[in-house]
């Protein structure tokens, strides 16, 4: 059994921030167009980015919120890392633009991450290492997406936009201290997109047991064993949330209660924000957690892999929480749009 990845220098989350766009497309509106309104719906509604939003603008706002909570000068960030599967440029890192927009340039590491829905937690793990090694004091890790769904496809109901940002720093300055992390990765082709294609392919039922459930389950079990803990030792648990059913099922399989996953389950009214998915659940949980609470997060990225990590909330959470908008402040801010508006905004119309 593998050991936990845990840096010698204790690290944690010094600041966190969320962002969700204000527009919502109800799943029943998609069904109206594609199935005459029939069939079950995987979620209630999803967040749609406005015409002027993309992964970079989402990352910038989430990061500004994280900076506000961290209370540090942006120039102290020695790494700015954005993980996404919808980077606006195929070549030119989102991270440089985000770093410039925050005022973190020029003496910072910047580079983009990609691993389907777990690109954000990847960046976080790397940040734990950067700070934990003593190479730097602060690093910013972001997961954000404006995921595209093929029109009429099952994934169109859930492919949404949003993101979360975490400033990783020394444990003594953290509002939640890292207890450890562990990754579980295999070459499993459950969902992918070739370079010039606009929409991804997915393996239908293959994305279930061999992919989502196997990787999250394996990472979670290995983490629990390596830490000698059980689900009851955690106040909250957050799993990657591609739809409402999967995280509830894996929670039950692993032995977590509905109450433990409740604050972090944002997918029903936000949708699957891909690289933002598990970590928006984390920001929503931090928004209500109390000092001493333990939080387990297990992300999942297709291709495939899971990052498991756990945190213990500190006394600093109370004073830091109110310094930026809460995840629910964004979720509550809602303007419903119809399918036609969605199609126009998401660039699915041929204009030239």
């Amino acid at each position, binding site marked *: 059994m593998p050991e936990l990845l845990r840096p010698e220098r204790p690290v944690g989350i010094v600041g966190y921030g969320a962002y969700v766009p*204000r*527009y919502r497309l109800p799943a029943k509106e998609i069904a109206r167009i594609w199935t005459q309104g029939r069939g079950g719906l995987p979620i209630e509604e999803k967040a749609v980015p*406005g*015409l*002027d*939003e*993309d992964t*970079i*603008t989402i990352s*910038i*706002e989430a990061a500004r919120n994280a900076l506000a909570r961290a209370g540090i000068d942006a120039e102290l960030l020695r790494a700015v890392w954005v993980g996404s599967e919808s980077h*606006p*440029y195929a070549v030119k890192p989102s991270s440089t*633009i985000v770093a*410039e*927009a925050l*005022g973190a340039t020029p003496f910072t590491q910047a580079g983009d991450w990609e691993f389907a829905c777990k690109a954000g937690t990847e960046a976080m793990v790397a940040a734990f290492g950067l700070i934990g090694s003593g190479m730097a004091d602060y690093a910013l890790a972001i997961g954000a997406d404006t995921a595209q769904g093929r029109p009429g496809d099952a994934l169109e109901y859930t492919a949404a936009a949003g993101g979360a940002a975490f400033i990783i720093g020394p444990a003594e300055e953290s509002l939640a201290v890292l207890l450890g992390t562990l990754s579980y990765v295999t070459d499993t082709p459950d969902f992918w997109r070739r370079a010039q294609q606009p929409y991804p392919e997915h393996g239908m039922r293959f994305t279930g047991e061999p992919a989502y459930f196997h990787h999250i389950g394996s990472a979670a079990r290995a983490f629990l064993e390596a830490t000698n803990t059980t689900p009851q030792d955690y106040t909250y648990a957050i799993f990657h949330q591609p739809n409402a059913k999967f995280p509830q099922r894996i929670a039950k399989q692993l032995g977590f209660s509905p109450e433990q996953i409740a604050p972090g389950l944002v997918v029903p009214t936000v949708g699957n924000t891909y690289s933002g998915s598990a970590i928006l659940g984390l920001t929503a949980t931090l928004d209500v957690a109390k000092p001493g609470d333990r939080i387990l997060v297990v992300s999942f990225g297709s291709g495939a892999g899971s990052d498991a990590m756990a945190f213990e909330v500190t006394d600093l959470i109370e004073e830091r*929480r*109110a310094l930026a*908008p*809460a995840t*629910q*402040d*964004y979720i*509550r*801010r*809602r*303007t419903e749009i119809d399918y036609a508006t969605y199609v126009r905004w998401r660039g699915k119309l041929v*204009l030239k």
Partner: protein
Amino acid sequence: MDISRHWRNRKQRYRLVGEVCPHCGAKLFPPRDVCPHCGMEAKTVETLVGTGTVYAFTTVRQAPSDFAEQSPYVVALISLDDGPMLTAQLTDLGDVEPYVGMRVEMVTRKLRNADDERGLIIYGYKFRPVLERALA
């Protein structure tokens, strides 16, 4: 291809980096090196706070080609709390009707594509109604 002008202006567009006049204390945006209030040299860099009030706004319905895909959109004169006034789009209005005197805050958004879908994406400031928070 349009590159250097956008690159030169990035700090102004992303973060409202302006100047403060060391002689009369006025904050200036955009930076212009000569204070328009007292006429003295003003080159001290100062980042402005992105909060302000709507002075006037309009919905553009006949857009120039650069902005045609976004039409219609709302453009406004925003009176920043720090003093200067600037021109910017209002965004994230949803079903909110803007009004003269509305309180707004800066966000960084896509302004447009510099040339076409192969060109640079130009990011910059827009303003939205202040986000309501449960905890203040």
